[in-house]
Every structure is written in structure tokens, then in C-alpha cells.
């Protein structure tokens, strides 16, 4: 079952990439498509942030990941580079978990 998911998901994602390169760029001229290009990733990435930080299966939870995410926000506000943001998030979460 996992193999089916791995292979079907990979094929689907590849075809999505290929479709972009192969489709007519004129599609981008449409204002509705242009707005979707800009906004769909913002909505989905934000959803992933909170799902990965505040949920466990179907439960809403508040644990060390929340502290790590808060630290990441501070790091991003201070314009820290990507790697530093990840290290700070991981370090703070581990620290909070150890202290809790």
C-alpha cells in the first residue's frame, strides 16, 4: 500500500511539474490565474505550518513544537537565514521539552 502511495504520488507530482513547462505561458496572462499563482501557496504553506506545529492526528495540541515555532518567528523577524531559523526552532523545542 505504501509503495502505491509513493509511486502514484511521485508520478502525479512529476506530471504537475511537467505540465507547467509544457503549457502555454499565455495562461499566466489571465488575472484569475495570476492571483491563484500568487495566493494558493501562501494558503497551503500556512495550513501546513499550523498542522505540523499544533496537531497530532485529529487532535489540536500545544507542545514543544509551538515553542520552536515561536522561536522561528522571532528568528525570521530578525532576518536570520533559513538554516539558523531551523536550528533555533529545533534547539528551542528540544530545550522546552527537556525542561517541561
Amino acid at each position, binding site marked *: 500500500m505504501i509503495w502505491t502511495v509513493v509511486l502514484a504520488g511521485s508520478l502525479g507530482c512529476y506530471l504537475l511539474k511537467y505540465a507547467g513547462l509544457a503549457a502555454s505561458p499565455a495562461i499566466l496572462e489571465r488575472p484569475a490565474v495570476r492571483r491563484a499563482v500568487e495566493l494558493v501557496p501562501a494558503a497551503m504553506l500556512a495550513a501546513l505550518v499550523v498542522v*505540523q506545529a499544533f496537531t497530532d492526528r485529529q487532535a489540536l495540541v500545544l507542545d514543544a513544537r509551538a515553542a520552536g515555532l515561536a522561536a522561528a518567528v522571532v528568528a525570521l523577524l530578525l532576518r536570520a537565514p533559513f538554516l539558523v531559523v531551523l536550528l533555533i526552532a*529545533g534547539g528551542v523545542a528540544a530545550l522546552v521539552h527537556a525542561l517541561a
Partner: protein
Amino acid sequence: MGLAVGLYGAAFGAAATASGLSVLQTCTLSLLMFTGASQFALVGVLGAGGAPVAAVASAMMLGARNTLYGLRLASPLGLRGLRRAVAAQAVIDETTAMALAAPNTAALRLAFTVTGSSLFVGWNLSTLAGALGSGLLGESAQVALDAVVPAAFLALVWPRLRHSSTDRAVAAGGALVALALTPVVPPGVQVILAAAAVGLGFGRWRR
């Protein structure tokens, strides 16, 4: 950027094996899917006990943004045939960002090729390391990895939030919809439905 990708890839390898994938399945995902957010979403749904269809759908919903990147890159890359089929695998967040930051077409093509090939090697090696190493990790390292994943998604969306109030509204909508739906829909489905938050952005734009 290389070190960050290494950490992110290792986090994926560890997260995937923790979700029940074998090392071979984990490495196959990084080779064939090669789009980090989709891979994390797929193993996240599987690990949370979600349905196979939800796992594939989540990966593809996130992978759909690569279609939009491809639309932007198609004309400046100007590829056909086999070269286009190979290049397609490298149409992801990082390569698009680097390519579109280039000052001219030649620099864009070089940035795309260099970023794409180095990321592909780094992502797959770090995935393998993470998948093999996850069994050795202590509890603290597991907790740290769990926190690295949302932080990485946040760092990906952050530049959009900085630039546009519409993006901030859409992101807030996506986050709220996802949290509100978590208790009531199967794992993974809330992220798919959160794309509906894009309606917020359309509403503001129409006014």
C-alpha cells in the same frame, strides 16, 4: 543554502521512517517526487493514519504550485523534448526562486541548472542519511526534528507575508481553516481544504 537543505532533507528522512516507510521507500520518494513540502505532507498523512488517497492528494495539491512555477519558467528556459522532461523534475521552490532572481536569461538558465542539480544530489544524500540515522536519534533530537518541519514551512511562506497584506490575509485564512477542520476531517484533508482560503484573496482583489 546547502546546509539548510541538508538539515531539511535529513529531517525528511527521519520523519518518513518514523511514519512507517522503509529506507528504500523514503529514498524513492526523494528521488522520484523531489519536492520537499509534498513529501512531508505525504508522510505526514500516512503517519497520522490518513487514507492513501488523502496522502496522494495532499502531495499533489502542494505539488500544484510547481505547475505555476513551470508556467513562469517555461518561456525563459525555452526547453523542448527530453531536456524539458528532465528539467521538469527540478521545477521546485528553490530553483524557481534562484532562477527568477537572475538578472538576465543566461543567468536564469545557469541558476536553474546549478541550483537544480546541486539540490537534487544534496536532498537525496541527506534523505538517506536521515532515514538511516533516525533509529539512532534520542528523544531530544526527535523533538527537535518535529519542530524543524513547521519552521521550514514558515520560512518558505515568510517572504510572501512580508510583501503583501493580501498574502497575509490568505495565509491567516489557510491556517485557521486547517486548524478548524483538523478534528472533523481525516488527517491531511484539512490542508487540501485550506486552499479554499484563497477565496479571501480573490475577494479583496475584486473589490
